[in-house]
C-alpha cells in the first residue's frame, strides 16, 4: 500500500485545533447527555418499581420504545422529523434560533436513549437491594417518597455504580453519532482532517487513543465514586 505516514500533521495548525475542538464537543455531548440520562433514567427507573399500575406502564412503554429503536434512527427523528410536527413558528425556532440546535438535539437524543438503559439499571438496583425494605420503611411511618429518597435510592444506586460505569462509557462512545447531524465532534474532526490531508490513519489513530483515555478516565472517576459511597462494601454484603 502506498501510504506515506506523517504524524507531524497532527501538530500543525489548523489540524491540531480541530482535534482539540472535536474533543471539546465530544466531552460536552457526553457529559450533557449523561446528565439527561441520569436524571430521566432515575425517574423512569423509580417509576418502573412504583406500585401504581399506570405509572409503571408508562415507564415500561418509555423503556421499551427508547431502548429498542436504534439510537441513530432516534437521532434522525429528533433532528429531521420532530421540528416538522411542531407548530411552524416553534419548529423554526428549534431548527434555527435555539442555541446550537445540532448540539442540543444530539445531547437530548443520546440522553433519552441512554436514559432508557439507565432506567433498567436503576430498576434492577432498587429491586435487588431495596424493594424488600419498602414495607419496613413504610412501617416506620415514612411516606413512600421519603422511603425512596432515604432508603431505596441510596442503597439501589450504590449497588449499580459498576454497571452505570458501562453505561457512561457507552454514552461517551455514542457521542460520535452526533456527527451524522453535523456536529464536529472528535470522530467528525478526524474525518475532517482525512478529507483535507488524506492522512486518515494518523487522525483516527489519535482519536482512538483519546477515546481510550476518556474511557479509562471515566472508569477511574466512577470507581472513585463507587468507593466514596461504599458500593463495593455493599456488594460484599459488608453493611
Amino acid at each position, binding site marked *: *500500500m*502506498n*501510504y*506515506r*505516514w*506523517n504524524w507531524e500533521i497532527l501538530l500543525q495548525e489548523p489540524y491540531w485545533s480541530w482535534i482539540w475542538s472535536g474533543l471539546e464537543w465530544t466531552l460536552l455531548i457526553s457529559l450533557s447527555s449523561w446528565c439527561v440520562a441520569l436524571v430521566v433514567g432515575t425517574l423512569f427507573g423509580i417509576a418502573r418499581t412504583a406500585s401504581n399500575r399506570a405509572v409503571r406502564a408508562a415507564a415500561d412503554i418509555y423503556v421499551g420504545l427508547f431502548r429498542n429503536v436504534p439510537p441513530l434512527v432516534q437521532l434522525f427523528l429528533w433532528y*429531521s422529523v420532530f*421540528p*416538522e410536527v411542531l407548530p411552524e413558528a416553534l419548529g*423554526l425556532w428549534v*431548527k*434555527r434560533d435555539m442555541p446550537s*440546535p*445540532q448540539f442540543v438535539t444530539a445531547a437530548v437524543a443520546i440522553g433519552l436513549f441512554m436514559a432508557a438503559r439507565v432506567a433498567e439499571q436503576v430498576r434492577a438496583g432498587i429491586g435487588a437491594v431495596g424493594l424488600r425494605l419498602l414495607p419496613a420503611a413504610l412501617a416506620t411511618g415514612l411516606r413512600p417518597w421519603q422511603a425512596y429518597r432515604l432508603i431505596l435510592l441510596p442503597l439501589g444506586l450504590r449497588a449499580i455504580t459498576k454497571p452505570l460505569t458501562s453505561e457512561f462509557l457507552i454514552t461517551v462512545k455514542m457521542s460520535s453519532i452526533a*456527527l*451524522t*447531524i*453535523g*456536529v*464536529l465532534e472528535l470522530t*467528525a474532526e478526524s*474525518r*475532517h482532517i*482525512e*478529507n*483535507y*490531508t*488524506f*492522512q*486518515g*490513519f494518523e487522525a483516527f489513530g489519535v482519536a482512538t487513543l483519546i477515546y481510550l483515555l476518556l474511557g479509562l478516565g471515566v472508569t477511574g472517576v466512577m470507581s472513585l465514586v463507587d468507593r466514596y459511597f461504599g458500593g463495593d462494601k455493599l456488594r460484599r454484603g459488608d453493611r
Partner: protein
Amino acid sequence: MKAKHALAVAAVLSMGIAAPAAAQTVDAIVAKLRATGTLSMGYRETLLPTSYLDENKKPTGYAVEMCHRIIDEVKKELKLPEIKVNYVPVTIQTRQALVANGTIDIECGGTVNTFGRNKQVDFSPVSYVAASQLLVLKKSGIADFKDLNGKIVAVATGGSSEPELKHIIEENKLNVRVLTVNDHAAGLIAVESRRADAYFNDNAAFFSLIKQSKAPDNLAVVGPEYGYSPQGFMVPKNNPTFLWIVNHAMGQMFKSGEAEKIYNKWFGPFGATVGPKLKAAWETFSYPE
C-alpha cells in the same frame, strides 16, 4: 515474556512507519494489466452527471465516459487485445484510501486536485473545474453573498467550500451562522426545511441535488462563481507509465475537441457550457506530440 511483547509491538509500529516505502513496486498497474487484463475503475453512485449509476445500474456519466476513452488508449499503448473493467463504487470518504492501497487503478469521479492530496495519490489533468455558488429557495430573495448577512448558511465539512465560505464571510464582513452538514443530501434538506437559508457548495454537486429534490422549481442556484476547484481522476502513486498514458489520452481529447463534445453531451442538458477556467486548463495541457 514482556520483552517479547514489546518487541512485537515495536515491530508492528515500525511496519506502519517504514515498510510502505520498501513495499512499493513501480508500474504495478501495467504489470497487473499484462498479467490479468483487468483494470479497476472507481465510480460514484449518485454524482450526476459526472459519475453515477444509470437505470440499468451501470456506471455512466461524464467522468466514466472520459475514463473509457483513456482505457481505449491504454489498450492501444500496451497492445492488449482486451481490457476487462472492474467497477468499484467509492464515496468521498473511501475514494482516497481505495486508490492509495491499489484497490482502484483510476477513480473516475470529481476529486479536487490539491497539493495536500498529491502527497498520497497522483492526479490526471483537469477534467472539470468547479466553482462555489449558493443553493437557495427562490422565495428567500438571496441573490449574492452580500444578502447572506444575518442568515444561516449550510456548508459540507471536508470539501473546499468550507474554507472558501470563511473567506467570503471575512471579505464581506458578514454576520453569518454556519451550519455544518455531513453530505450534499443533508445540505439540500437543510435548505428545503429552512434549517438553513442557503447551501454553499461547489456547483458541480447542485445538478444532482436539484434532480433529487421533490420540488426542483422552488430551488435556485445564485451568487457569483467563487474559487477555483480543478478536479481530476486519481491514480495510485508510482505508476509513471499508466499516468503518462492517462495524461496523453486526455491531452489528445483536449486538443481534438473531443473533451468538449463529451462535456456538452453530459452537462448540456443542465444548461452548462465549458467555462473559461476549464477551457484555460485544457489549453494549458494541450502539449504538442
